[in-house]
């Protein structure tokens, strides 16, 4: 008799567990990199890095270009459509064309890579995005500080020899 009561209690308690429904909230799509990058960015700092010197650990391996060639006026604007998909981009500030000053853009991935490799911003001269002009590496992703860092890397024979590090902050 006593055993039966214990079974009964056990059954009831199992039922109680089974009925418990977890509240996960409503489903929201995660914020993509497109959304984080879109908008207008101003230059905080531009550094030119001698990757050959840096690899050989010789100095100087870095030079500050922030105040040269109008870079203090540098701005870049990444536009997206109503679906938050990349469309055009444009550089203003009358700076030399280190990379094409306007065109179309896309990302190599909507999200940051788990392996830590920088997401690429591909730049194109045509709307169909078939003619790639340059690519930028997203070295630091915009967060709550509204800053990001883009690297333009010059590569020859698969080896990087110079890079330009654009440190940017969001304009409004």
């Amino acid at each position, binding site marked *: 008799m006593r055993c039966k009561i214990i079974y009964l209690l056990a059954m009831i308690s199992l039922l109680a567990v089974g009925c418990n429904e977890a509240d996960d909230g409503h489903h929201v799509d995660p914020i993509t990199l497109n959304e984080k990058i879109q908008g207008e960015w101003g230059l905080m700092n531009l550094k030119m*890095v*001698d990757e*050959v010197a840096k690899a050989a650990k010789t100095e100087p391996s870095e030079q500050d270009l922030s105040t040269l*060639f109008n870079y203090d006026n540098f701005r870049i604007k990444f536009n997206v459509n109503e679906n938050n998909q990349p469309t055009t981009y444009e550089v203003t500030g009358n700076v*030399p064309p*280190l990379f094409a000053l306007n065109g179309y853009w896309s990302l190599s991935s909507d999200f940051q890579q788990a392996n830590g490799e920088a997401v690429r911003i591909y730049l194109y001269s045509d709307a169909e995005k078939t003619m790639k002009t340059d690519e930028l590496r997203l070295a630091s992703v915009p967060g709550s500080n509204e800053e990001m860092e883009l690297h333009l890397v*010059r590569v*020859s024979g698969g080896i990087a020899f110079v890079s330009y590090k654009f440190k940017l902050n969001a304009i409004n």
Partner: protein
Amino acid sequence: MKRFIHILLLAFIMVPNFIQAQENAGAPTKIWSYPVIYKYDEEVTWFFDLSATTFAETEDLYLWIWSPSEPDAGNWENSSDFAKLHYEGNKVWSFKLTPTVYFSKSAEDIAASAGFWFRLKDKTGTKQSDVSNVAYTPFADFATSNELIRAYPPAPTLTGGLSILFNANLQPGFEDATSVHFHSGLNNWDLKVEYQAWLPEIVEKTQLKNLGGGIYKMDLIPSVYYNAPDGYVMENLVFLMVKDDWAGTTPDQVINAAEYIPPPPPKFMFFPTQISKRDFLGIIRTNNESNVNKLIYTITASDVVITGEFSGGVSEIKGFVDLVTKLQNVNVTEIHVNVVDNNGRVITDTNILLKPLD
């Protein structure tokens, strides 16, 4: 009694407050004179380096001196014009005086005094330097030291003052000299001022000051006296003293210059090490000679010629050339770079390969 002590205490507490009502400008970094050594009845210029003080550049400053006497007594709030310093530049001020005249005291009285104690101040006395002292170098012992020549400082510099004492009593044949002249040159006669007895201005320039008792003194600043070019490196000063119109001379003398530390060698470089036609080309030169302040470049890429110049100083001359814009539509794999300095000397004349981009 107790009340008296309280009042006294209060007074002492208040004293610093009164003192602090005046702005303290700080102390002179360096004080020197020209001539380096002088008798109290000789005209001398005192120099005060006030670069570490809060006195403003070109500000009108005045000498407030109370020892050996106080010529501008009673005028703290309105210094007299005769106490005004002359601005030399680079936050250095100077004051010219003949001590016996300025202090209305005999040379003996000045020698027996506590020395030259002063503050520097603005006209109204709202700003003042710390209490300082102009050090005096006595040299009366030279006459009895049995030395023919003595230099102050013993190891001179190119741009600093130099006083050379000569004891004519120790040089046979100089007893009845009417004048003594300085026949000399820098770096073993490389830059010389010869005693050309037929040129009045040279006779005057080379003449030693007769201090009496057979003691003579020559005062000079080598860079000025020998009109040394910029960047000249002084190693030694060679000379001999000449009696009248070459009636007699001392043996050759040499004074070695202060230990000279050669600057690090100049270094020229391009930045970065490897470059494409879509990059900026940095042209950098460090540890420049003192007469090099500009780099003038000519870059030739096919039929495009880019010219320009960068300015700088001893530590660095640096600039960047915008190949990005200039070579945008030029099909080249190599550029020729020629860089000369402001003296027309070729710094580099070389070809740089442009890396093809992937």
